[in-house]
């Protein structure tokens, strides 16, 4: 019971923030298999929110509902803005250079090609790919590909980014670097991020809030606000509170 105290529960009150994504009692079944049961959550502008759950908790289904690939059976979904999404697979086109890949969504929208490339070029330094703009994805490492994919997602949406286990396929050293990098970039670009993961530590390290999802069917077990080290998230790794929260969440799952 002591663990519970660590989970500072926060009432999802309308604190005046601008809600970008609101899910209200979303349910989804495939045949007789119930995947999601009355899932409600909200994400405000500038927030970093994680959806944490074991495999089979319907994280990917939730992801597909939010992006509009799959309709929900019940409940309402409000998305205020454009969503860009990114997956574990980088989904870069192997026949296009890094820069051409990054500006692909802009090209598809019919924007001026030169202007799009200038825009992307200005951000290349931030993702640490200067000098690699004209290479092909096969010449890049896994982390580099994910960073290119991130910038593409950012240029496609700019407002809300939905990241579905983006670092799941990376080795732990690269993963750690990418997490730190993601926090920096989020600060610089001021984007709103909805992050889907099954890694408890990762969710605590990165998030402002965490929704813990149970498995089969996916139900929001708990909404957790991560209050400690808000201004210095990488410092959370050294904070004992992280371990306590991790144990508390483990108890939930």
């Amino acid at each position, binding site marked *: 019971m002591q663990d519970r105290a660590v989970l500072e529960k926060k009432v999802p009150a309308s604190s005046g923030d601008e809600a970008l994504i609101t899910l209200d009692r979303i349910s989804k079944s495939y045949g007789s298999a119930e995947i999601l049961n009355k899932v409600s959550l909200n994400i405000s502008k500038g927030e970093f929110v994680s959806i944490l759950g074991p495999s089979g908790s319907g994280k990917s289904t939730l992801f597909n509902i939010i*992006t*509009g*690939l799959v309709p929900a059976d019940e409940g309402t979904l409000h998305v205020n803005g454009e*969503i*860009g*999404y990114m*997956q574990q*697979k980088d*989904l870069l*086109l*192997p*026949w296009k250079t890094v820069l051409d890949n990054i500006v*692909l*969504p802009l*090209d*598809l*929208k019919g924007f001026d090609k030169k202007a799009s490339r200038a825009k992307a070029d200005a951000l290349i330094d931030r993702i640490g790919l200067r000098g690699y703009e004209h290479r*092909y*994805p*096969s010449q890049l490492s896994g982390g580099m590909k994910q960073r290119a994919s991130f910038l593409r997602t950012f240029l*496609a949406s700019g407002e809300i980014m939905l990241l579905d286990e983006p670092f799941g396929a990376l080795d732990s050293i690269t993963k750690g670097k990418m997490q730190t990098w993601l926090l920096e970039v989020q600060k610089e670009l001021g984007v709103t991020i909805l992050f889907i993961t099954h890694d408890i530590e990762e969710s605590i390290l990165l998030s402002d809030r965490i929704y813990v999802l149970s498995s089969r069917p996916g139900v929001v077990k708990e909404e957790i606000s991560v209050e400690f080290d808000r201004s210095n998230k990488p410092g959370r790794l050294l904070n004992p509170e992280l371990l306590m929260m991790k144990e508390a969440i483990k108890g939930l799952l």
Partner: protein
Amino acid sequence: MNRLKKLDQRIYPIATLFLAVILWQLIVTLAHIPLYILPSPLDTVNALVSDFSAIAGHVGTTLYESVLGFALSIALAFVLGILMDSFQVVKKSIYPILIVSQTIPTIALTPLLIVWFGFGILPKILIIVMVCFFPICISLVDGFEKVDKDYLNLFHSYKASKLQTFIHLKLPYALVNLFSGLKIAATYMIMAAIIGEWQGGTKGIGVYMVRTKNAYALDKVFAAILVIVIVSVAFIYVINYVAKKTTHWK
């Protein structure tokens, strides 16, 4: 390292071929086999040199038919391939028929085509299309089908139009597959032209072969075969080169 490997790949078949040719020459020379039974390699080369202008003229016609037929096959394969990819109904209706149609022996149809369309190049081109269209079209359709669903979802999320999805995703994705179909088609192409010419015509390397065969000038028949092999290999080489340039990311 790479170069050494390439050399290694080539030196074995070349050496084997060289030995076989020497053996062939020895057998013909030592056993005094007459020309109308089996010409020797030297006879073949001599015939090629002495009758070069005639052979070149006939090969020119065959090449013309082949390239035209090949281009037409590609165009047709794209039209039908895109239709099959865009409309499931078309695919469901045509794909199985297309496969069954390949069991029809082309050689049995050629006389009919000649009856219908005469001794000109039209029946030859039709035969080439009949032979080449299939591997190209199937490889293209399969290539379109292989496109990763996650990529399609990505394009969907970018609200890409059908045409944009085709140009930026499906076509490049299918290219690798397409080229393997093109290579198969290219190996059949000249052969198909010759099947057509063999059964009736006024010009072409097939016609030349029938005439020389009837005159028991087997050295000239062999010379023609040699030229056909060289032309076919050259054609495959060109396709390989184009494939390498257009699918450079592989």
